[in-house]
């Protein structure tokens, strides 16, 4: 079962990766994605809101789908909430598998789905005091929907 956390505190990519690999000799590859807050257009901070309870359940469900679809030895998803200035880490997806392609593909799958299915909302706060809610992007839906058709797993390591 995947490790899923929604937290205000920062996370430590190196420590999470070490935890997923600890004591194992059956992992061929670990893939990670870290999403960060960019200082676009004078952004002062993002504030992330979530739906406590549903968010964790939704991420667990997405992670369970990934584990059913790819032969993973482990999977960690951490999503931060609260106020995050530019440069701060927002989200971590980490996947481990005996197979390189499984780790890479499941990592991309999970971040694409987090963007479109996990109940988080971002509010942008600008240096000039303006605030606005980020609107959902059609590209993110397109990125997520490319996973709808089952793809054959490449048989490599």
């Amino acid at each position, binding site marked *: 079962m995947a490790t899923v956390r929604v937290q205000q505190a920062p996370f430590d990519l190196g420590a999470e990766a070490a935890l997923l690999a600890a004591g194992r000799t059956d992992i061929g590859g670990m893939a990670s994605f870290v999403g960060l807050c960019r200082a676009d257009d004078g952004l002062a901070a993002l504030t992330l809101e979530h739906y406590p309870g549903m968010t964790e359940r939704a991420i667990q469900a997405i992670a369970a789908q990934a584990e059913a679809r790819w032969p993973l030895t482990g999977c960690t998803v951490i999503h931060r909430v609260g106020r995050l200035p530019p440069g701060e880490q927002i989200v971590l997806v980490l996947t481990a598998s005996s197979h390189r392609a499984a780790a890479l593909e499941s990592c991309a799958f999970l971040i694409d789905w987090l*963007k479109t299915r996990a109940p988080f909302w*971002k509010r942008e706060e600008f240096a000039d005091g303006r605030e606005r809610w980020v609107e959902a992007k059609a590209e993110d839906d397109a990125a997520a929907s490319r996973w709808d058709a089952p793809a054959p797993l490449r048989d490599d390591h």
Partner: protein
Amino acid sequence: MNILYFAWVRQKIGRAGEEVSPPPEVTTVAALVDWLAAQSPGHADAFANRRTIRCAVNQEFATPDQVVKPGDEIAFFPPVTGG
């Protein structure tokens, strides 16, 4: 019913949630939205464009025709923007 609001839905309505008891003919998400929209100008504003509103019933994404009943936890929010 326990209603929850998130993001700008919460801001427009002016509260994070409320306990409501709609009349018995309100049995679907769509009917509940119609009923809630009539509760205050803030509600009307929040539900003005139904296409921008998403709903979850008991923490699962729901469609407008989904049945709702007393005791359900029903959340309304904009399309998600996490990741």
